């Protein structure tokens, strides 16, 4: 019997194709409360599609996605948006920050969208920036930040609403090893402190080693699971 926590997010028999190209062929995955899971695999194995389906970014063609026991794949787009704003935090390799907003406004944005007054939102955003060591850069725009700083700001933005799950798609893919290490340390540390689960897509074994569990995908299906040493 598994000693894993009860699944917070679960995918069952996911099928997804882009045109005639199959991306997922019956993929299954569970992520428990507070668990950090790395999904690895070769390019084109369906890693990002799996994350997109779990986060409600893409609707699967077949199978089910549940979050906290409720079907995510059946939710309307507005409800999915709300879920990503409140319960989920999403991080990509790059591009998730609004280029025209300062770092602090980028982090404050999800709070403002939830109705928090701007001043309060900025105060909380600054706390998160401080936590990730980029408070001094709070008035800079994404284009003026280094890659590592930008990803830490993105991480602050993903975590500022206190999500229960963080979906991170190659969060260190565009960074050098030192910056990548800083981002991963910040991500894992913050997730552990807040009890958030993390689904991490990566092709980098060093990054996968931060996870509690690694799941491998091949040709759109899970081929094995193991706990990294």
């Amino acid at each position, binding site marked *: 019997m598994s000693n894993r926590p009860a699944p917070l997010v679960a995918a069952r028999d996911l099928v997804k194709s*882009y045109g005639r190209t199959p991306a997922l062929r019956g993929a299954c995955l569970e992520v428990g409360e507070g668990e950090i899971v790395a999904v690895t695999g070769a390019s084109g194995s369906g890693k*990002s*599609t799996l994350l*997109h389906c779990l*986060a409600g*970014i*893409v609707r699967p063609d077949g199978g089910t996605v549940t979050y906290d026991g409720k079907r995510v794949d059946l939710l309307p787009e*507005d409800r999915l*948006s*709300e*879920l*990503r*704003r*409140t319960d*989920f935090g*999403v991080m*990509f390799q790059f*591009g*998730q920050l*609004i*280029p*025209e*907003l*300062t770092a602090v*406004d980028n982090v404050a*944005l*999800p709070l*403002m*969208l939830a109705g928090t*007054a*701007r001043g309060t939102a900025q105060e909380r955003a600054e706390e998160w920036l401080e936590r990730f060591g980029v408070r001094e850069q709070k008035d800079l*725009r994404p284009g003026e930040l280094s890659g590592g700083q930008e990803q830490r700001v993105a991480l602050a*933005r*993903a975590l500022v609403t206190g999500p229960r799950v963080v979906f991170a798609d190659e969060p260190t893919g565009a960074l050098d090893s030192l910056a990548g290490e800083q981002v991963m340390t910040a991500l894992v540390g913050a997730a552990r402190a807040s009890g958030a689960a993390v689904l991490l897509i990566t092709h980098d074994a060093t990054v996968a080693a931060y996870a509690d569990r690694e799941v491998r995908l091949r040709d759109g299906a899970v081929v094995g699971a193991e706990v990294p040493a």
Partner: protein
Amino acid sequence: MRTDLRLAWLFIRGSNRQEWWRIALVVAGATCATGLASAAAVLASVRGQHSFSFAAGLLNQPGERSGAIVALLLLLVPVLGFLGQCARIGAVHRDRRMAVLRLAGAEPGRVRRIAALETGLACLLGSALATAGAVAVLTAVWERPTALAWAGIALVGVGVPLLGTAAGVLALHRVVASPLGWVRRTRTRSGRGPLLLFTGGLLLVDVAALGGVTGTSMNSRGAGSNAPLVVCAAVLAVGAGAVWLTGALSWLTGRLLAARTGSPAVLIAAERLRDDPWAAARIHAAVLLVTVIGTGFAGIRQALLTELENADDTHGFAADDSFYTTGLDLTAAAIAFGLVMVLVALAVGTAESVATRRRGLAAQVAAGVPRQVLARALLLETALPLAPAVLVAGLGGLVIGTVYSVLASGTVPYLSLLVPAGIYAACLLATALSLPLLHRSVRPAELRYT
């Protein structure tokens, strides 16, 4: 150079659907520009009194012809704005192509030259079409066109593609493409670049208008009127002022709102305005010019029609009212044409802005930013800076119309104030046309493809 030209041609031939849109719109813009400039050149080649069999005698006298030349050349202003916007369509694909060229070993300058030549070739096609049309019309309506008229048409036919290429080089001169696919624009916070480019275009239109009008207006003693010089100087001043005004208002609006707003949509719009207040300044300036001229014309038209209704034979009007009504109708048509060009340019510019940012926008939606917030931000980017600018332009036009009306009939044409309101609403509608594209572009699934 020959290799660059061949490469540009190959790129055009291998264009995808979006690229064909850009090429088709550039061709359409170049056709309009060549047609208008050719007509102005032919009219400018006519000396003294001449009897034309069309336009209700409006073009027979040098004075009225001067007005027609100025009107035709003024119509080039929105066409230039339209062409400027069209050149930006497909920037994402163009940027990828530039990156591949850089990867293949082309220098940054050469990459920009090839990209500009693509625009030049599209302009050449439009110019050829319009020149063929101009030749056909000229031979049909004028039995023996003068050598000067032919020279004017030839000059315009050659000049438009050359100017298109030169404008492309200028527009891209700050774009730096890296072999890894990143394309960045070195920052120009002062806004002098777009201002100089647009003012340069206006100056060119002015010089052409001045040359044409002075030649046409010469009376038999060889003395010219000062009116064309005054009109051209006024147009240049108003045009440059409009660009500066829209840019400055965008920056000020962005700065004021970004610091104070609590609304995410307003914050995004305000920061975009503050970040690059000159992005839409050229096309907004064209909106202002159309607003000033349209509002002023509405007042003048109202007063002139009232005057014609009340006139008797002793007032010294032409015997046939159609001389005036045809003039008013043609002017209204010209203003409507200018407005349509401006609105299309505005819609194209907004759509292109969405297309260029689609990956970032899709990432925003994927991260939970509601589409409605992004849609409101997009509309506000146009609505916020344009509201005070159109108001000022409308008041300016009202003053022009009022001065004429008071002198002519003693009334104030308040109805003409509906013109700026209508133009403002039309601008918002044109911007809103890009909302379906926004909704399609920000689908998080776009992250797969971009």
